[in-house]
């Protein structure tokens, strides 16, 4: 088989993994080729608007498992291909020196058994690091059920290691991926968490959940994320809107991937990690799913209007972060500037604070942006919905640039 054909097959079967972040590593050039960029670098953007940072491929799409949602499941009649370690190295190096990519994201279908597959990944990446002296970014998938010793070996070679949780609950996983179980995922995450340092998985671990293939609510999904952030200090949970690839009576008959829902989950995930929100602030058993019309933070604020409007000149950092439309950067700017002068609406604009959403929830030096009668739920809610009309113009992969 031609190299080009292999590449097409093995990129096509890897494309459903959402992660492509290359941030968080300080790996230096050590008499070879490449280095890591701490903030991560996007080298291109695909037709779906997602960042392309890494050469994202499978080593092989042959697989002994039969996960219902997966393109590569054994019962699918598709073309199969396998890269040799040398081939993977050659493509990586050639792409890297032309500045197409930041590094490699290597995953694989399971051949023979977990350990055998894992050993092949290690062999390939070890060749790339030691023979080709490649110091660029490498993200590898840990194979579920492989020996701890192999996880350790692989972790010492890569920048990021990830094990996919795949589905929000262990029951769903049992149903759709009968060969996998959630304990295997937890074991790997626990091991990486306990051993992470500047040599072992320096840029941390991430995971991915498929959204909409099973019946879980947003509440169940976010609780699972919260638990993993808490227990394993994950860098990221990626949410991947389910795309119907296979026909199976166990899978829902969706026509389009639930992109809007995925987007809300990413927004809420952001609130958990950087804004001190808890899942219980955002969702409960009576409202177990996010409002599709309004983003989670604004939705929360509208339910707690008694806490607003907040005075920009006196609100604490934590309170500033609760204001819809105000992020970490703006909050920090406000805090450091107001020591030196009293902030007015005009100043906020000069400071680069975007007021489109925030203006409904703040006062500056005692003044509201409009008649104070307008500070009521109906007015604010309808205006926010109007402004949020074209959600898909933004792609939230970008967030991974700095904090992935």
């Amino acid at each position, binding site marked *: 088989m031609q*190299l*080009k054909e292999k*590449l*097409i097959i093995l*990129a*096509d079967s890897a*494309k*459903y993994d959402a992660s492509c972040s290359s941030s968080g590593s300080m790996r230096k*050039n050590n*008499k*070879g*080729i*490449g*280095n890591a960029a701490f*903030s991560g*670098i*996007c*080298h*291109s*953007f*695909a*037709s*779906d*608007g*997602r*960042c*392309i*940072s890494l*050469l*994202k491929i499978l080593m092989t799409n042959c697989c002994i498992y039969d996960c219902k949602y997966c393109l590569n499941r054994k019962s699918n009649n598709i073309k199969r291909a396998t890269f040799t370690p040398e081939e993977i190295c050659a*493509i990586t190096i*050639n*792409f890297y*020196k*032309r*500045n*197409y990519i*930041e590094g490699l994201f290597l995953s694989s279908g399971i051949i023979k058994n977990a350990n055998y597959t894992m050993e092949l990944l290690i062999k390939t990446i070890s060749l790339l690091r030691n023979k080709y002296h490649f110091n660029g970014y490498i993200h590898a998938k840990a194979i579920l059920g492989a020996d701890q010793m192999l996880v350790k070996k692989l972790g010492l070679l890569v920048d990021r290691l990830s094990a996919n949780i795949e589905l929000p609950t262990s029951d769903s996983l049992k149903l759709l991926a009968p060969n996998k179980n959630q304990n295997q995922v937890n074991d790997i995450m626990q091991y990486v968490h306990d051993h992470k340092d500047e040599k072992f998985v320096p840029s941390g671990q991430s995971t991915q959940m498929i959204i909409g293939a099973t019946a879980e609510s947003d509440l169940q999904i976010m609780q699972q994320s919260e638990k993993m952030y808490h227990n394993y200090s994950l860098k990221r949970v990626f949410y991947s*809107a389910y*795309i119907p690839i296979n026909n199976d009576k166990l899978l829902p008959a969706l026509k*389009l*991937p639930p*992109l809007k829902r995925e987007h809300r989950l990413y927004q809420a995930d952001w609130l958990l990690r950087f804004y001190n929100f808890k899942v219980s602030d955002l969702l409960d058993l009576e409202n177990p799913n996010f409002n599709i019309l309004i983003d989670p933070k604004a939705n929360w604020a509208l339910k707690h209007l008694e806490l607003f409007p907040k005075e920009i000149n006196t609100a604490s950092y934590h309170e500033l972060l609760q204001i819809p439309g105000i992020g970490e950067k703006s909050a920090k*700017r406000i805090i*450091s*500037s107001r*020591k*030196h*002068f009293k*902030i007015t609406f*005009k*100043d906020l604009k*000069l*400071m*680069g604070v975007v007021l489109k959403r925030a203006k409904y929830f703040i006062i500056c030096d005692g003044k509201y942006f409009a008649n104070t009668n307008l500070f009521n739920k109906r007015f604010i809610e309808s205006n926010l919905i109007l402004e949020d009309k074209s959600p*898909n*113009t*933004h*792609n939230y992969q*970008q967030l991974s640039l700095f904090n992935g």
Partner: protein
Amino acid sequence: MDNKIYLYDNNFIGLLNLISFLITNKIKPQNIKNLDYQPNLLDELINLNITIDKEIFKYIIKTSNKDILRILYYIYLSKYDNKELVIYYFYLNMLKYHANVIHMRNLKCVSLGLKLAHQVKDEVHKLKGFLRFQELSNKILYAKAYLNNDVLYLLSCHFKNRLPLEYWIIKDENRKMYSVYDKHNFYIVSEENFNLSTEKLSNNEKNMQDLWKEFYRTIGISERKNDKCRMNFMPKKYWKYIIEMEQDI
């Protein structure tokens, strides 16, 4: 009306020395321009021939900090027409507020200066990703880019660390300048002083470009197609030099 325009040697340190001199002597310039400036009829050009003193860097760091010096440098690299005047007023406020000057965003020169510095940084960051090298028949990696701001030096620093064992050349199509790396250092030279012996591609080059284009085409998920989003992150002005996008222009 005062039409005095003060001239500086075409480099950053020359500009800083001039500004420091003007401030010390309480001269408020109408404008500051480099030696290439084409004057209008009414302009009165003044060249003070200030001696260059490297201590000025230390002085700025002592008065504020390294970050402020870096911001001033980034503003200097900006394509903005009156950047020198922005630096003058930024510098003036630095003397007053020291390191806190970056928090004084209610001052126009500060907010504008920081905005320009950000644009420069952003262009460097984007090009770290979007620059594309092609391998020439003599094995040199060659990239062309149209740089809005003067970021050739900053880009070269990045690739010196990243590809230390390759010969590479980056051309700024806007300023007609080349950065040439010889596996030890890079040198920035103008078109008149540099002759690229060949632009012939290596035998393997088309092959690799083809592989990459196929990868690019394959990795997008058609059910998620989103041109608007792609355009946001990768504006069309960069496409000309991004090989996987060429055919879409």
